[in-house]
């Protein structure tokens, strides 16, 4: 060792007497003793119990209605129609009626749900170009090869937005109508914007910009995905800021679901006017659906979900029940451990050599 050379004397090579080198660093050596483990288990059981009860109450306070409209009501006709590929472009609309038994209080969220649709397939998820949707001019005209086979259309035009994810966008549209107590039909107003993550809407997705050009002009020379009926720049005729890559429905769709059964936010109840100021009143409702999205190929189901929310999110009982179960199991284990300790460990007989 280099530094030893500079020292002199009979004990030149003697190692330093530092706590680190002598492995005597001050340390804490915890042990699993009855006085720590048993209180820990009882405390855990208690905390889980409290959490479970709290969550259960919270979840119980929410309301949720799921309407599977795949073949419900008049939608059966549309389902048959969509089975035939040649009818793919023909419009089809249908209506499903359901009733709300107990009024929805507070904000009501409108979701569409899909079952057995695998947004999480590896090749499917890869088939997108974030550089294109963030508005890079180069990628607009020359999308990434990850988008194959939806990179260029038959004529060789680049697809914008490219890739299988964008191409398969959910294209049913809904309008909700309240059958008022007076017999009249009141359309339920839905806020269709503000359904995306802030970061998605403002950072991850941006429209390509060119000076003095309209969105349509910027998109010139690109083709819409083959399954789209409208080009990207004309998705929302009512709101010019909701077109192109920053269209809310597109962004929501592009956030791929982790599991094959999922729901995505479609709109939020607009509560400015009566009778919706407090939420959804009791009564019958009907949903008018522009039935476009084909699901029969993959035995999929489509549904509409109406729900109210709390700080904990939607109506998912799992965590509440899981905490209660964990609490009781922990309590059982704690009692068991106590018995074991009382019978065997307490007198320390086993600890003797």
């Amino acid at each position, binding site marked *: 060792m280099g530094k030893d050379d500079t020292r002199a004397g009979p004990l030149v090579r003697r*190692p330093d007497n530092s706590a680190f080198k002598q*492995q005597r660093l001050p340390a804490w050596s915890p042990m699993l003793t009855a006085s720590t483990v048993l209180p820990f288990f009882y405390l855990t059981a208690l905390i889980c119990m409290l959490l479970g009860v709290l969550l259960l109450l919270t979840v119980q306070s929410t309301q949720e209605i799921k309407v599977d409209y795949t073949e419900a009501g008049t939608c059966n006709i549309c389902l048959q129609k969509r089975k035939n590929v040649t009818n793919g472009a023909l419009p089809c609309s249908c209506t499903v009626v359901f009733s709300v038994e107990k009024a929805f209080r507070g904000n009501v969220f409108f979701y569409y749900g899909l079952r057995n649709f*695998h947004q999480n397939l590896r*090749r499917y998820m890869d088939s997108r170009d974030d550089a294109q949707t963030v508005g890079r001019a180069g990628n607009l005209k020359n999308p990434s090869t990850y988008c194959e086979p939806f990179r260029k259309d038959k004529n060789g035009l680049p697809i914008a937005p490219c890739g299988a994810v964008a191409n398969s966008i959910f294209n049913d549209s809904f309008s909700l109508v309240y059958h008022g107590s007076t017999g009249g039909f009141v359309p339920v107003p839905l806020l269709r914007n503000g359904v995306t993550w802030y970061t998605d809407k403002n*950072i991850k997705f941006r429209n390509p910009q060119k000076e003095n050009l309209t969105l349509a002009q910027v998109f010139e020379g690109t083709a819409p995905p083959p399954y789209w009926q409208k080009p990207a720049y004309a998705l929302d005729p009512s709101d010019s800021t909701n077109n192109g890559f920053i269209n809310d429905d597109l962004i929501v769709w592009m956030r791929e679901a*982790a599991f094959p059964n999922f729901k995505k936010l479609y709109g939020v109840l607009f509560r400015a006017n009566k009778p919706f100021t407090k939420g959804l009143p009791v009564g019958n409702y009907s949903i008018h659906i522009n039935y476009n999205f084909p699901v029969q190929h993959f035995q999929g189901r489509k549904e509409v979900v109406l729900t109210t929310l709390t700080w904990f999110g939607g109506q998912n009982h799992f965590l509440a029940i899981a*905490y209660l179960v964990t609490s009781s199991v922990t309590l059982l284990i704690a009692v068991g451990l106590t018995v074991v300790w009382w019978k065997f*460990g307490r007198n320390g007989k*086993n600890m*003797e050599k």
Partner: protein
Amino acid sequence: LNNAIKTSKYNIFTFLPLNLFEQFRRLANAYFLFLFCLQLIPQISSLSWFTTMVPLILVLAITAVKDASDDINRHNSDKQVNNRKVEVLLDGELRNEKWMTVQVGDIIKLENNQFVTADLLLLSSSEPLNLVYVETPPNNRLDKFKGALTVNQNTFSLDNDKLLLRGCTLRNTEWCFGLVIFGGPDTKLMQNSGKTTFKRTSIDHLMNVLVLSIFGFLASMCSALAIGNAVWEVKDGSTFTVFLPREKGANAALTSFLTFWSYVIVLNTVVPISLYVSVEIIRLGNSFFINWDRKMYYPKNDTPAQARTTTLNEELGQIKYIFSDKTGTLTQNIMAFNKCSINGKAYGKYFSCIFSFLQKTQRVDFSWNQLADPKFIFHDFSLVETVREGNQEANAFFRLLALCHTVMPEEKKEGELFYQAQSPDEGALVTAARNFGFVFRSRTPETITVVEMGQHVTYELLAVLDFNNVRKRMSVIVRGPDGKITLYCKGADTILYERLESSCAKLMNITTRHLNEYAGDGLRTLVLAYKDLDERYMKEWKQRHHLASIAMDGREEQLDELYEEIEKDLVLLGATAVEDKLQDGVPQTIEQLAKADIKIWVLTGDKQETAENIGYSCNMLREEMKEIFVVQRNRLSSRAVLACFGWRRKRLCRMRQTACMCQTVICCRVTPLQKAQVVQLVKKYKQAITLAIGDGANDVSMIKAAHIGVGISGQEGMQAVLSSDFSFGQFRYLQRLLLVHGRWSYLRMCKFLQYFFYKNFTFTFVHFWYAFFCGFSAQTVYDEWFITLYNLVYTALPVLGLSIFDQDVNDRWSFQYPQLYAPGQLNQYFNKKAFVRCMMHSCYSSIILFFIPWAAMYDTVRDDGKDIADYQSFALLAQTCLIIVVSAQLCLDTHYWTAVNQFFVWGSLAAYFAVTFTMYSNGMFLIFTSIFPFIGTARNSLNQPNVWLTILLASLLCILPVVAFRFIVIQLRPTINDKVRENMRKNQSIDWAFLNCCRSPAHNQGFFKFPPSGRSAERSFLLTCHPVRQEDTHSNEKYMHVHAHAETDGNTHTVCLYIHTHIA
């Protein structure tokens, strides 16, 4: 042929290709290269290239940097050595030349303290009679050289005595000239270095088996998933082609085949690439702790312990058999001439070292002899009187001792004699002769000068018949001043008794009785004999000797035959007995090791009685051991040594069962080769981990044969140390090496492996469960960057901290309970069963870690109604759960929380969150759009209470069963570790206030502070015995009686301590 050497492996241009080639010869590295190639195929690539490339490059880089720095060191030392200057005789004048330009055939001049440049044939030197003193180089196979020098048609024999070997240093010689006969790579030194065999530990072997079985496991997992994929593709995938068309030409079968390889990539983390690197780092760390240990530092010769091999540490915790040399290992190898038997009369009294200082008055006074060595101690006046009376046999006895040896005298000042002896026995004998009036004064190759009772007498040295391990004797043939030719011989009794004249039979009996007595006292004995030779016979023998000594074929055999011929019909003179004192702390150490259930075999060249006695004195044999088998070996002539091998081995095979049941085995009269054979036998048949410890060249073969070789740097040079794996100054440090360092190293390594496999399996199995939800499409659960950094950044340091610092009990308690060592011997901490358990544990954890987040998330939304069941949020949730659970598991495994551990654990968690937030930030996305697509995920999901509640639940469900299980085990069936830890915890409350120290026999009283946290200087107490609790009836205090070994700088005292404690 020049003298340049090259020990470096690479140069600048060859480094990269050669080093990479060497690294890729390792299975794990090659596997990751293969993975990388797989990833380049777009149809298969399920992960980005960087997920395997970054770890691979990092691992390769670490290894390459280490190799490069090693090689730079070699380059530097080569350059330094090659550029050393030496004076070369060229064209009749001396010129300064570089070493590397020296050619074979050059004549060079060396000066004092210079290194020998090449293998030289010595031509002349400054010392009288061209003697040269050298400090020998580190090698034990340099002892053979055969050559012949032809000058003017006369042939002279050249042997080892006339050579200076490269690597030696010239000492005490002003200058010498030598002819270069081998240079550079041809020198003995270079020929002997390099080819070291690598020892592998049993954990290494286990690891290789496990890695292979992991490969098998990986293949079966991937096959299962590929089959799943085929089923899915047929059932669901074909209907999904509307949204995701298949690749051209792909069908379900091809897709599932590609999926197999995709999953090989995704699940690659079950084969841990960083395993080997981490293992090396841990072993290196633990080796440093051995080097740094002050309690294994021997102040007397300034020797710290040294881990010379850094790859064997954990095996130190698994030793089952220790093979120990006796001389110099158990004993000090400082010899004292203690007793002798001359012509049937015994002289000398035995005083053990303990009492010697009490007997000062009885020492024999040698002041009549001006040349006497003042340090020499003898306790029998009658011998001096006998010698001074001029007793013929006594005079011949000491004359023999003064003549028959290979000692070099050094007389810097007139009358101040100093002997340089190759073996301490010889030194002791020559010193004895010196004090009794036969002073060996000087030697030349042809003469020996002795001062006999004040008179200078010069003997002509006619021949030296060397000592070696087969001959076990040495003779000289001298012509006295009166012209009489005499052969003096000393050697082992068995050997010499076969060569005695028949008339000595009676004397032989008496001497044998004396010899047995000496051996019973544990003394080393030699028998002395002489023979007068006929002038004519001698002349003729000398002629044949010369011929034989220059023979190129069978030189040794011819010489042996000649020696055999002349060394017969000897006349017995008597026997010497030399005491070899036990080293400090040997009995205690052996007792400790025996308590740790380590079997100790002593392999010695001594007689049975000597060995047995040593066995008793160092606690290996005890009175209560009822059945002591004595396996007597036939008296064999030296010629039958080869035959005796076969016999011995056959016999040993039968013997081994008996022997292996014994607690202690002492093998006497074994040769170095037999030592190695015994070790190999036990290794082979008992499948146990063996350790050999020794100090001399004769232990080298044994040290190399055993799993672990320990060298004691003592009196007999450095050969044993240089071929050993660990070395230190005293035998007693062995208990610290094994019971503390070995046990910790083993424990740490096992904890490391268990945890390492746990964290990697848990990580990987989550992918497996996800496959059932993502159509077996080889989609990963986690972010690719998380996969890349998980092993390298997020979990690397905590586990290293665990496996470098962890101690279950501290060193003091390790000594007090040597039984703690047993689990290592039985391989209990980590084995195949533990591996399977670890896999099942991982499986459970992964189920929790996947299904809890799944169930909690699949149908839920954020508190503002927006998405949280999306893939990216789920990935973040799953990986956060994972990192918290594996950190918590690490905390459970850590028994010894130093600040460093805390820092590593919390630092790694903090690093995880910091890195995650950074990678998911706007800036990173806008700069590297396609590499960091997870923008905003952390912000949007980690602010949700349900995400944190999920993390808490998953962590609880992973941790609680482990805690409960461990607690139950501690309550119902506590391991020895648990018991000691419990004991330690209770005893921490004892106030180790003062130690009342009494030092026998003077009853020196003193106070030693002994704080439990102990950072004061007084802490260096080595407790070697069990404390015996003693109740003091007069007060409520209890006393502990402890034998302790106190080491203060430079001095070692055995003291007994009364620990004055309050026991709660």
